[in-house]
């Protein structure tokens, strides 16, 4: 294995037994971590250990088991919050990043509906005709469709920041896109389809200069590089557990204390109330206000174990490792005739997700031949269909490595692309 000094991949891989399996009779080469990551043993052990020893309802019971469960759940919150430089009370557990972004979007449509009926809400969340919501042309559907829905329900207008041909935000007309009508600016820190890392702090500043609320989708950045929520300058930040070695079924919304306090509840029910009568209810302070019903306790504990593991490897080291893999992959692809990267072609301000198209081949067929070689990649629109349209491609094939991938994995991916070209006889 070529020299990759940033981290000891062989040691890392021992924690991920699934990487030893074979598929279609070939050793698995997992290059689909942008979709979901694999889980180290410590995460599985943490979840199982919780169920075997302390499982009980949290924040509800007064018995010993319930106290243990509550303690485990709330210390998971502390662990995950400090991983991104945040205070535990500013971190809300959700189902996934999509649910976190919907929570943010519903803060606007709910406040608007309540205001229309004379209820007192924070005016920053009241939105309607003449107001605008700004996203970008590289958003994941999770950070696009919820805002479309807010517009449909309130009459606000959706605007977007377009893209340059090399897959960067086109910020030339930023002043006319984010203006006095703008109530929300929401964008991804790192694109899941292009790999582009966006200058989030700059755009959040533009948002705040017009008193808009700034939202960041950090799904593809927090798992892959050191992120301190305060550096992004956002009011709300969403991401998922399953892309950062955690279990399925949990996501996160960080918010500034001030903004979370100003937000109306989203889902309502047990554990998020203060008092309830048949006529009306009052609500708990954040984060409980936004965590209705029985919590994803085992998943929080599992993600805390994932965070401890990521910290033990080191986020700086992981970012450096991925940087090396990315450079290697980009160089390799540039050597393949007829293969074109969609997104930045160098490693400047870009993460490790690399989308490409192959002349004469549909991405689905490329992915199929790669799969036959044991190489797992994602094909399709990557839940960023408008981005595909922007680049006039129906879909792309994407490799997205993570800390457990090696240069050999990248080489296997490159060889599999060439094999697809050969199988379909599109290179001569």
């Amino acid at each position, binding site marked *: 294995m070529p020299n990759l000094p940033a981290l000891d991949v062989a040691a890392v891989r021992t924690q991920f037994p699934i990487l030893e399996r074979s598929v*279609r009779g070939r050793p698995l080469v997992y290059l689909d971590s942008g979709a979901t990551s694999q889980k180290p043993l410590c995460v599985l052990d943490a979840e199982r250990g919780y169920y075997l020893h302390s499982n009980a309802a949290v924040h509800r019971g007064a018995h010993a088991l319930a106290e243990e469960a509550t303690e485990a759940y709330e210390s998971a919150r502390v662990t995950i919050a400090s991983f991104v430089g945040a205070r535990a009370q500013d971190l809300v557990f959700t189902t996934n990043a999509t649910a976190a972004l919907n929570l943010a979007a519903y803060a606007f449509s709910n406040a608007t509906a309540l205001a229309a009926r004379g209820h007192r809400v924070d005016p920053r969340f009241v939105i309607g005709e003449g107001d605008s919501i700004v996203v970008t042309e590289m958003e994941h559907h999770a950070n696009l469709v919820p805002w479309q829905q807010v517009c449909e329900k309130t009459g606000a207008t959706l605007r977007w920041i377009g893209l340059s041909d090399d897959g960067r935000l086109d910020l030339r007309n930023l002043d006319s896109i984010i203006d006095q009508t703008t109530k929300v600016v929401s964008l991804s820190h790192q694109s899941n389809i292009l790999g582009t890392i966006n200058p989030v702090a700059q755009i959040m500043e533009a948002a705040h200069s017009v008193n808009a609320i700034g939202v960041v989708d950090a799904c593809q950045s927090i798992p892959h590089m050191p992120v301190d929520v305060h550096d992004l300058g956002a009011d709300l930040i969403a991401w998922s557990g399953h892309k950062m070695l955690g279990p399925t079924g949990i996501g996160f919304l960080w918010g500034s204390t001030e903004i979370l306090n100003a937000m109306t509840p989203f889902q309502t029910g047990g554990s998020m109330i203060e008092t309830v009568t048949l006529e009306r209810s009052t609500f708990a302070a954040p984060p409980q206000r936004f965590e209705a019903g029985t919590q994803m306790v085992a998943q929080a504990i599992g993600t805390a174990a994932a965070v401890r593991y990521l910290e033990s490897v080191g986020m700086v080291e992981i970012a450096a490792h991925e940087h090396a893999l990315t450079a290697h992959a980009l160089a390799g692809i540039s050597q393949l005739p007829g293969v074109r990267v969609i997104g930045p072609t160098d490693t400047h301000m870009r993460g490790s997700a690399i989308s490409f198209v192959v002349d004469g081949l549909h991405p689905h*067929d490329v992915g199929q*031949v790669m799969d036959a070689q044991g190489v797992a990649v994602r094909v399709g629109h990557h839940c960023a269909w408008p981005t595909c349209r922007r680049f006039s491609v129906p879909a792309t094939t994407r490799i997205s490595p993570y800390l457990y991938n090696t240069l050999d994995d990248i080489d296997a991916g490159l060889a599999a692309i060439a094999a697809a070209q050969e199988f379909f006889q599109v290179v001569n």
Partner: protein
Amino acid sequence: MDLEGLYQEIILDHYKHPRGKGELTSPLAEVHHVNPTCGDEITVQIATDPAGHLLVGYQGLGCSISQASASVMSELVNGNSIEVAETARAAFVDMMHAQGSGEPNEEILGDGIAFAGVAKYPARVKCALLPWMALRDAQIQANLAESEEG
């Protein structure tokens, strides 16, 4: 690798040389279907000739499996009676859900039997079925279906 089982020569040939692709001049119905997972798209138009036989036109954008399937569909249905079309569709759908077991009927399916191997790849079954599902909806819209089930 098992790729040859999936990508039979016949499929690749239909992919590269699609039969019957194009628009009808005066369709009775036109439907547009997409595969939301991968973005494959197909538009199917339907009409009848004076003898009451089906005329099928299509346009598509997608992978080899979905495009070849449209081509085969056109070959099996275009110019044939509603009964023949329904029999072909039923046989094709059955084959796709058989996960590789069962004996596809070559008399009914023609080149379609080349898709038997696709049934082993659940993610590709949707690709192969896309044009057929669009055809069914077009038939229903144009009142040219035997029944709405299936």
